[in-house]
């Protein structure tokens, strides 16, 4: 009897720790074999496999194509998948974070940004520095993410949120570079979206030694990694030089990522999903995890790429593999969120009680004054490419003023809406890095509008507005449904936003590679331009923002309690989850309204509430008003810069605001050290 019980438990333990990953890898291995058989079939049938593989008949087109296109594509798919999965496994182990990966921590976006910049701007004579440049881009992005998240109580969540901030910023940075090089759009998009089409073995020859060296080095370091996994204290007491080891492994992971992205562009989610899935399936030792990641990642990307190739045979525009991978991978994040144990951060991590910069009253007055002066300056002063111009009184002046005020007010209203939204999310979620971008509502709004525009051909702005609003609200309902079961709902809601944003990213890449003449308009809207807004829309959004701001201020007392933390509030007798959801709903409506006007990105909703609290606006009511004042000021400045910085060309306001926001967080992070 006891023997049988023992046997049973051993069996199930065996299943948990070894079999499931092995089965997973085995299934993918079989699928890979099937792919190979299908691709090799013509040559298997007539026994020309060795010839086609090693010395193709120079007169037989099919053989040449097979040898120089199909074979290297198979090899590249395996190498990229294996490399990225290993890089992800290494990063996850080093940072002890199940959601870390080259894509979620901004490494991929950093490499992509650096390469886009390099390809378009660097002279041909510097071509040999391209790789170093890409590597530097990845390392700097990772360093920025680490800096923002360093020294926080809940490193897991902070890292991911910081990664998302840096990701969004770099992606929109890449888009801006492209906006100004419209003619090359198509090819850069194709590469940026992760294109595995091959013409010869050159890319493979570039990638394989790098990935192999990176793999061997990481695997060699994987024993000390197991020590790392025990935690810093244990590892250093065991004599490992923890910091050096961590940096070395992270550097190698970035190196592999940079090599892969240089050759094949952005391939999302393999680096996140494969190691995370293997870990959930029961692999805990880092060496096992890595070896399995190499094969599972390689097989998985090879199979996905095969599917993409079949799809592309229908003709028309090709579907880029990387974007397709992201589409496969995004739902997986939601699944993983249910598995990964991410504890909510405690507010005390970020109180900044010693960081009050100026007195609240002085700051409020200063902000109000700067607002008034700023509006007057924005409306009457501009740059015309030679210097400052003050608008005089001519017959066209009124029209010019109306044009400028439309855009300035649109930006300012969005600043206010996002500031309120962000304050609510940060208070209810008790997370100072939460923002409207991160709930996914902005992304879903944008996604609905893009699909309507690019796929279903809606061109009228009013139609798009309605569709966008519907998309934002629908996504909120989905989020609420997903979060229903969780104890720490707000946190999962934020993390679900990650998945939504990822899906948006993938769809945007696909839509942009598929061309259509509205591509560049779409891009500037995505990056947050006020160019297309009109006063009627501004008035509507202003009305919504005003009403909801009043509602939020009226609810400032329960909001105060909510931000003390669920447990205390519950003990004080508040029905906290209903209230939390109501506040999240307000936040989502505000975020969606702002997105309709200036696109999904700005970080004002992140920065303004944060800055307000650092400046000493502690109580909910003051926090809301302080955040609004800051948000409006920031967006006003961003809007003026966007319109005038490189006159007559115009930059998207959201991007400028995002630059200001990211700069703020980097400065804050370095001050803390």
């Amino acid at each position: 009897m006891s023997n049988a019980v023992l046997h049973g438990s051993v069996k199930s333990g065996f299943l948990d720790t070894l079999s499931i990953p092995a089965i997973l890898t085995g299934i993918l291995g079989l699928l890979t074999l099937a792919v190979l058989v299908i691709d090799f079939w013509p040559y298997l049938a007539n026994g020309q496999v060795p010839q086609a593989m090693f010395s193709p008949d120079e007169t037989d087109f099919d053989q040449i194509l097979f040898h120089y296109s199909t074979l290297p594509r198979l090899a590249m798919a395996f190498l990229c998948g294996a490399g990225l999965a290993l890089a992800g496994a290494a990063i996850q182990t080093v940072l002890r974070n199940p959601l870390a990966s080259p894509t979620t921590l901004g490494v991929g976006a950093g490499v992509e940004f650096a390469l886009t910049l390099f390809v378009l701007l660097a002279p041909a004579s510097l071509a040999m520095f391209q790789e170093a440049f890409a590597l530097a881009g990845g390392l700097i992005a990772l360093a920025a993410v680490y800096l923002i998240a360093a020294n926080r109580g809940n490193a897991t969540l902070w890292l991911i949120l910081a990664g998302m901030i840096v990701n969004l910023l770099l992606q929109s940075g890449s888009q801006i570079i492209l906006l100004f090089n419209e003619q090359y759009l198509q090819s850069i998009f194709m590469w940026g979206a992760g294109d595995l089409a091959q013409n010869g073995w050159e890319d493979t020859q570039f990638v394989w030694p790098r990935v192999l060296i990176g793999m061997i080095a990481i695997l060699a370091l994987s024993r000390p990694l197991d020590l790392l996994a025990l935690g810093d204290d244990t590892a250093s007491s065991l004599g490992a030089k923890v910091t050096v080891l961590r940096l070395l492994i992270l550097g190698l992971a970035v190196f592999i990522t940079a090599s892969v992205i240089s050759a094949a562009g952005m391939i999302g989610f393999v680096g996140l999903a494969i190691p995370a899935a293997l870990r959930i399936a029961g692999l805990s030792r880092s060496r096992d995890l890595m070896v399995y990641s190499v094969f599972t990642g390689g097989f998985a990307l090879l199979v996905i790429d095969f599917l993409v190739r079949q799809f592309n045979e229908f003709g028309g525009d090709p579907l880029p593999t990387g974007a397709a991978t992201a589409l496969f991978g995004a739902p997986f994040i939601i699944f993983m969120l249910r598995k990964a144990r991410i504890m909510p951060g405690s507010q005390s991590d970020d109180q900044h009680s010693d960081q009050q910069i100026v007195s609240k009253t002085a700051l409020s007055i200063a902000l109000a004054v700067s607002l008034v002066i700023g509006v007057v300056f924005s409306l009457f002063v501009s740059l015309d490419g030679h210097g400052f111009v003050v608008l005089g009184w001519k017959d066209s002046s009124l029209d010019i003023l109306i044009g400028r005020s439309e855009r300035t007010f649109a930006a300012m209203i969005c600043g206010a809406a996002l500031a309120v939204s962000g304050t609510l999310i940060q208070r209810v979620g008790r997370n100072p890095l939460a923002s409207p971008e991160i709930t996914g509502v902005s992304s879903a709004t944008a996604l609905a509008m893009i699909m309507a525009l690019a796929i279903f051909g809606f061109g009228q702005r009013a139609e798009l507005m309605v569709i966008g609003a519907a998309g934002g609200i629908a996504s909120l309902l989905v989020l609420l449904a997903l979060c229903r079961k969780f104890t720490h709902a707000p946190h999962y809601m934020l993390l679900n936003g990650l998945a939504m944003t990822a899906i948006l990213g993938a769809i945007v890449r696909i839509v942009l590679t598929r061309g259509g003449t509205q591509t560049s308009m779409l891009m500037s809207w995505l990056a947050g331009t006020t160019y297309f807004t009109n006063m009627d829309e501004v008035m509507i959004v202003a009305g919504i923002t005003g009403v909801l701001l009043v509602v939020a201020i009226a609810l400032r007392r329960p909001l105060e309690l909510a931000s003390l933390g669920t447990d205390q509030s519950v003990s004080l007798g508040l029905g906290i989850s209903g209230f939390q959801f109501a506040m999240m709903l307000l936040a989502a409506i505000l975020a969606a309204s702002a997105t309709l006007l200036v696109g999904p990105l700005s970080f004002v909703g992140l920065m303004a509430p944060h800055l307000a609290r650092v400046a000493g606006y502690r109580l909910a009511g003051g926090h809301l008003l302080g955040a609004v004042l800051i948000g409006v000021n920031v967006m006003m400045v961003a809007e003026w810069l966007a319109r005038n910085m490189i006159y007559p060309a115009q930059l998207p306001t959201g991007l400028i605001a995002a630059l200001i926001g990211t700069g703020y967080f980097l400065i804050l992070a370095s001050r803390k050290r």
Partner: protein
Amino acid sequence: MNILRALVCPVLLCAALVGAHASTAIADPIEIEHERGTLRLDAPATRVATINWAFTESVIALGLDPVAIADPQDYVDWVAKPDLPDSFVDLGQRSSPNLEALRAAKPDLIISVPDLGMSYEKLAEIAPVLELQLFDGNRPAFETAREVFGKIAKATGREAEAKAYLTDIDQELIKYGDRIKTAIGPDQTINVVFFFDESNVGIFADISLPGSVMTAMGVPVAYDGEVNKWGFGRGGLEILAPYAKETLVYTNPVPDVVLDKLLNSPIWKVMDFTRNNRVYELPVVWAYGGVPSGLRFAKLLTETIENGPQQ
């Protein structure tokens, strides 16, 4: 917008109405069908702003210098001819032409595209907008281009110039076509191809501007596969394989690095057009332009082919 305007400037609005009314009385209005119904102009436009290069080149070809042009720098690189005027207002990007710069140029006509439909009202506040579709995916691009050219001529009162420009154009195109047939033989067809990167190519279909001009020349393109919204097919080099027996012309500009890698790749080298020495390099010409680019394409294609294949 309307709210503010109504609040702030009723007087100006009235003045504008009176002014508009006064000038209608003077001359017969010009009426042009466009994407927004019928555009009425009281007099031929003389100060034209062009948001798209196809319009820019068409206005210049009609002998009128546009007063405001979007993306002039890139025009030089991608359209090349006809030359831009000596002075004009730079409007910035085609995707978001600077409204203040546009206003400062004091245009009396703005020629725009439906892609910018979202800012139509804003443009229309500055000057009458002629919104013309250049390529709709159904009609051959050259046919649409001729119609657009005619509408621009009508709006600018240069119908005589347009007539002169288009005289004998059909015969001329046929003559170009005959010269090409003489050069490459009557059985050969041509594909016009451009390179995205070393692995991806685009191939113009008969509906595109190059394709429809070639149809008019009597040397239709060989490509008959799938077409995207821009009028070309796209894919790896293998999409060229079914047409490898035909002649291939690739367009410019293309980065040297890409060209180098591509022309030296084994797949390129095994293609029949490479082996049979039927690869030609076309100088810069705008493949999404108007009538001037279409005619320039015909001329350059003929000269390119007469000059012989690329070595």
